[in-house]
């Protein structure tokens, strides 16, 4: 009975994973289909859709906008998230719960509400909708993730090493520079990549808050939400490739390959 249950459960698990990965796998697969409409029957393997979208200036512009925004967002979100993580991890203070609540709330709210709020805020504050506003909004969304990652990493670091550094003559800032940062670099890189991925993927807020220059997901959405075509598959496949590689590298950086070093404790 036990074994049957095991088999059933594991097959279910496989199905579950299949469901979650289906859109990704199928989309990528059919981006190579030599037919205008991504469906069966399979007409043959081709790269022409990739060629087509990569030479489309609108796509190129949107993609480069997305890249610039993503890199900038990550460059802002990672340090502020990391500093907040250090602050929260190493100091006890009243109102820590409230602080975390405010600071980490954005990802929990419906994207649409956030999008609307940002949109009206920027309008009222006099900021013109542009890539800058998208960047600002994305930082609000991505920074909590950076915070989460760095918190995990900092809590793993032996706090004695920091006090040992003080004890040996390093002031607060020198300790952070010479002891905390070096140990945190892989995690910082992971946080950077994660924040970048989040910005790269994000469509709803970007759509609401961007002006003439759009990011890639917005472009996909606005141009092709009604039309299904293999060309769009190609764009999607490229987008997936970028996101997935960023996430996988981030995971490797954060978790390390193989065993974790135990000596840190």
């Amino acid at each position, binding site marked *: 009975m036990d074994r049957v249950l095991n088999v059933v459960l594991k097959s279910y698990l496989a199905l579950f994973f299949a469901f979650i990965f289906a859109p990704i796998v199928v989309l990528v697969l059919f981006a190579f289909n030599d037919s205008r409409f991504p469906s069966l029957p399979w007409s043959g393997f081709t790269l022409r859709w990739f060629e087509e979208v990569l030479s489309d200036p609108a796509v190129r512009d949107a993609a480069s906008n997305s890249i610039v925004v993503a890199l900038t967002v990550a460059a802002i979100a990672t340090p*502020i998230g990391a500093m907040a993580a250090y602050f929260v991890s190493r100091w006890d203070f009243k109102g820590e719960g409230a602080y975390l609540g405010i600071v980490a709330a954005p990802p929990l709210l419906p994207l649409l509400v956030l999008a609307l709020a940002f949109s009206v805020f920027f309008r009222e504050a006099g900021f013109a909708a542009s890539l800058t506003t998208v960047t600002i909004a994305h930082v609000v969304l991505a920074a909590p993730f950076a915070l989460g990652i760095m918190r995990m990493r900092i809590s793993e670091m032996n706090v004695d090493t920091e006090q040992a550094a003080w004890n040996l003559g390093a002031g607060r800032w020198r300790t952070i520079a010479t002891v905390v940062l070096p140990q945190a670099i892989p995690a910082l890189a992971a946080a950077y990549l994660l924040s970048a991925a989040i910005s790269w993927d994000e469509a709803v807020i970007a759509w609401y808050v961007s002006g003439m220059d759009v990011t890639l997901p917005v472009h996909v959405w606005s141009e092709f939400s009604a039309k299904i075509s293999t060309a769009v598959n190609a764009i999607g496949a490229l987008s997936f490739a970028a996101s997935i590689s960023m996430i996988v590298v981030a995971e490797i950086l954060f978790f390390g390959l193989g065993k974790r070093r135990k000596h840190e404790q």
Partner: protein
Amino acid sequence: MLVWQCVFFIGAAIVLLLMSFWAVRDFRIERVYEFGNWTDILGSTFFWKVYLQTMLYAGIAAFLEVILAFPAVYCIAFKISSQKRRTLLMVLVVPFFTSYVVRTYAWSFILADEGLIDSALQFVGLPSVPLQGSLLAMEIGYLTYAFPLVALLVLLSLMNVDRTLIEASNNLGAGRLKSILHVVLPSARIGLVFGAAFGFILAMGDYIAPSTLGGSTRLTLSLLVIGATQAGGDFPQAAAIAVVMLVTLTVVLLLALRLAFPVRRKAKK
């Protein structure tokens, strides 16, 4: 970090709230504080119909997410070795960080008339099933959005279940299923409750699934919001609807907190 969040996040939230009170006259937004929008919305049966419909769809989504995720998560928590589990989780998390819009688009072409499933069925000679724009398609969209998060929440709870309790339960004669019902589920309650709550909240707030997969014919609050801003630039009304969503969200979270962490009565002497 607090500074940034406060300025841009809290600031935005406040403006949203304020805006819900403003009025639209002649396609211009005037900063007056009146309840016009609110009476319009709260007094409209149409609005309430959409509201309830949204609640229904989100409720179905939350229910499906938890039920469907549970066996898979149970398997991960109890049947897989720790090393494999970590790799598995690392893999599971990846789709979560790919673009939701693109994934939804992928489903739309899978489910579309003349889409993947359709042509596969035709190929085999079965009649085509109209999936595009169906409730099922929309729910699939919600699932795609929320599954990773819900699965993680439930998983965390399950991993914290005390194994010895299960052994004790088996030892006392409860079979596997009974042990699950009476020991595992209650212990995992926190994860289940929050999984359902967040599954609900995410579904309630989502715009992409209803519009792309639901065919925009099944109205949800999110569609109303976008509709308001698109058509006449009626941001105040959209803001009001958004505030309603936020209030609902808060209520759901409070309920979840209550359910997950019940206040115990003191034992009477």
